[in-house]
C-alpha cells in the first residue's frame, strides 16, 4: 500500500472496518502523498460526523404506546363501519348543500321574476299617462281613437 494511492480504499470501505495494520500502512503512505493525505483527513472527519449522527437517536416517550393504541382503535372503528355508510357520511353535507342551492335557484328563476315585470308595466303606463295626460284606466283603444277622429271629421264637414 506504501506506493499505491489509497483513495479507492477510502471510498470502498468504512474506516471502521479497516484493521490496525491497514490503518498504519495508510498513515505511512499519507505522510508522503499530499493528495491522499487530504482525502484521508476528509474521510476521517466524515467518519466522526457520521458516527455522531448515528448516535443521535430519539427514545420513545412514555406516552407513545398510548398514542399508537388510540390511533389503532380509531382505525379499527373506522374499518368496522360499512363502506356505503362511510360514503354517505362523507357525502351527506355536500348533497344537502346541493339540494338547498337547487331549490334556491328554482325560486329565483320561476317565482321572483314575475314581480319586476308588473312593476315595469305600471311604470310604463304611468309614463304614458303623464305624456298623454290620461290615467291608465282611461286609455283608449285603437278603434276608439279612429272613431273619435272620424267623428271629429264628420262634425267639421
Amino acid at each position, binding site marked *: 500500500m506504501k506506493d499505491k494511492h489509497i483513495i479507492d480504499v*477510502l*471510498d*470502498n470501505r*468504512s*474506516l*471502521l*472496518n479497516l484493521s490496525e495494520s491497514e490503518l498504519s500502512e495508510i498513515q505511512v503512505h499519507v505522510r508522503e502523498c499530499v493528495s491522499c493525505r*487530504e*482525502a484521508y*483527513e*476528509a*474521510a*476521517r*472527519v*466524515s*467518519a*466522526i*460526523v*457520521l*458516527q*455522531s*449522527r*448515528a*448516535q*443521535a*437517536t*430519539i*427514545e*420513545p*416517550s412514555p406516552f*407513545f*404506546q398510548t*398514542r*399508537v*393504541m388510540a*390511533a*389503532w*382503535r380509531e*382505525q*379499527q372503528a373506522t374499518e368496522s363501519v360499512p363502506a356505503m355508510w362511510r360514503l354517505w357520511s362523507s357525502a351527506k353535507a355536500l348533497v344537502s348543500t346541493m339540494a338547498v342551492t337547487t331549490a334556491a335557484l328554482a325560486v329565483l328563476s320561476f317565482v321572483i321574476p314575475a314581480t319586476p315585470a308588473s312593476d315595469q308595466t305600471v311604470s310604463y303606463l304611468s309614463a304614458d299617462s303623464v305624456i298623454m295626460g290620461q290615467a291608465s284606466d282611461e286609455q283608449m283603444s285603437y278603434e276608439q281613437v279612429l272613431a273619435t277622429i272620424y267623428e271629429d271629421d264628420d262634425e267639421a264637414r
Partner: protein
Amino acid sequence: MELDLARQAQGGDESAFAEIVRRYSPRVFSVASRFFRQRSLVEEAAQEVFLKAFTQLGSFEGRGSMEGWLTRIATNTCLNMVRGAKRRPEFTVSDLTDDEQSWLDHQSAGNEGAQPSVENSVVATDLADRLLAVLSPEDQQALLMIDGEDASIKEVAEATGWSESKVKVRAFRARRKVREAMEKLLARTNAGQVTNER
C-alpha cells in the same frame, strides 16, 4: 412465540398489539431517528410504521425475527416519507456556523482526541446532516448504517430489501460524495486559517 403474538394481534387482540408496540418501539425509533432529527417527526413515522405493520401482520410468517421484519417496514416507510423532500444544494464554508467552523478547525489541526462533549456531538451531528443532505435518502441510509453504525453490507440489505451489490454501490457512491464535500470544506477552512495567520 413471535408468530403467536402476531396472529393474536391480527385477530384483533388489543393487548397483543400493545405488546408488539411496547417491545419494538425502541428499534423503530432507532430507524426513524436516522431519517429525522425532530421528535415529532420521529414519533409520527413510528406510529405510521406500527399502523402499517398491523395491516401487514398476515405477511409475517415467523421465518425471520419480528424485529427484522419491522425494521424493513420502518426503513421503507421512512424512505417514502422523506423521498418527496427537497434536497439542499451542496453547502460551502460561508454557510457554516461559527461552532461548525471552529469544530472543523479543531479537527483539521489534527486534534483527534478532541474532548467529547454534548456541544461537540451536536455540532458534529449538524455537520453530518448538512453533508448527508446532498445525497439521496437511499444513499444516506446505506452510508449511515455502514459508516455510522458499523452495520455489515448484509445487514443493510436485510433492513432495506436491496441486493448486497446495490448496497455496496450506494455506500461507495455516498462515501465518495461525502468525502469530496468534506475535502472541499477542509481545504477552504485551511485556506482561511492561513489568511488569518498572515
